[in-house]
């Protein structure tokens, strides 16, 4: 019985098994010969300059990846709460290696599989509750979750560096807490752990502070607001498209219009997403996640 074939570009049909082999080899080649460097100026926003080169980051991420893979191996034998505790330990160890206070890992309904977010007001990392209840964690999901958690926990480091920077300028812990809205114990730790003037992390923290709390804060709020709005519009466009697609009585012209509207909403969402990704704190977190991918 011949293997099924897929006809790709140039109308060349290849047996599925052979195509799997070719795609895997091509992916290995892409990993080796094509890096994370961006083509063109699409991702070169104000964020790139905020990234902090950290010689120890690679080693710490290696440890993190190793610990995450160990958690993945144990995943199906652990209850959701034990998984959360394990995650808390490995994220805590990573932050500790950078001198950053540990975050509390909390699970909640996020509506998106594999999602996580840093809540600086509570110094918490919120991880998608449903994800933590998955019976197993395959390789792709483990890598994806590890990357998301790593990216979000980088925000804890960013907020701590900003607090340290304010402490270095002589601001008290109480004022740091008020100015940044972070917990008092984190502000106190930062105020007692100042950055020296020549420390490169200080310039990095200044750049982040400018984006989040300083001169660029309004632009940041606009970018975040635009992303939320574009997401909401895309949801609406998607529902409308689904409704007409599943209804054979809808005239073709209306279906085409719904498809056109969906594509326009999607393009607007990606544009808003791009602006979000060039925010200094997001670009920096993404660069660390990229390093993790290379380490993984």
């Amino acid at each position: 019985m011949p293997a099924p074939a897929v006809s790709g570009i140039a109308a060349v049909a290849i047996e599925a098994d052979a195509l799997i082999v070719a795609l895997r080899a091509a992916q290995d080649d892409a990993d080796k010969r094509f890096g994370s460097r961006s083509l063109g100026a699409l991702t070169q926003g104000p964020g790139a300059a905020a990234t902090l080169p950290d010689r120890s980051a690679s080693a710490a991420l290696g440890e993190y990846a190793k610990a995450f893979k160990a958690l993945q191996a144990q995943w199906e034998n652990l209850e959701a709460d034990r998984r959360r505790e394990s995650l808390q330990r490995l994220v805590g160890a990573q932050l500790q290696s950078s001198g950053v206070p540990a975050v509390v890992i909390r699970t909640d309904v996020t509506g998106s599989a594999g999602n996580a977010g840093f809540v600086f007001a509570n110094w918490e990392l919120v991880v998608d509750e449903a994800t933590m209840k998955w019976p197993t964690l395959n390789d792709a999901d483990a890598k994806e979750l590890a990357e998301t958690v790593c990216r979000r926990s980088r925000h804890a480091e960013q907020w701590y560096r900003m607090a340290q920077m304010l402490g270095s300028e002589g601001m008290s812990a109480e004022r740091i807490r008020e100015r940044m809205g972070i917990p008092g114990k984190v502000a106190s730790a930062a105020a007692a752990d100042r950055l020296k003037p020549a420390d490169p992390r200080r310039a990095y923290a200044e750049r982040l502070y400018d984006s989040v709390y300083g001169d660029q804060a309004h632009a940041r709020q606009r970018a975040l607001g635009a992303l939320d709005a574009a997401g909401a519009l895309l949801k609406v466009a998607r529902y409308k498209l689904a409704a007409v697609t599943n209804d054979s009585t809808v005239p073709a012209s209306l279906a085409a219009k719904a498809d056109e509207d969906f594509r326009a909403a999607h393009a607007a969402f990606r544009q808003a997403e791009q602006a979000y990704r060039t925010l200094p704190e997001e670009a920096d977190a993404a660069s660390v996640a990229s390093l993790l991918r290379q380490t993984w």
Partner: protein
Amino acid sequence: MIRIGRDQGKALEAASIDSFESRMLEHLRRHFPDHAARLGETKARSVVRDGMSRSAAYGIVSERGVCTYIDLMVAFGEDFDRSPKYPWAREILFGLDLKSPATRIDRLHDRALHCLAALPAQG
């Protein structure tokens, strides 16, 4: 300190794209020799450029990500992202979540392999 002017920046960007195109053509010849031979250099170059543009619309702009996106175009057809035959592609590329583009392209590649593995054998 070395300063790079706007024109020099554009020239560097163009050189970077040219370099990517050349490496991408070599990559296609190596991994998809039949497709590359059928396309010929001019059409293959056009496919690469089209792939860069299409993947950018999905926020995929890293060299690695664009390379994988073009591999999938070659394997499944240039419109695989909107083909009803491959709903997984649409689901991932038009998704609302804020997973990184690198994660999205890995997920796409993963689902493509699963799709091929699940194809029913032909009698």
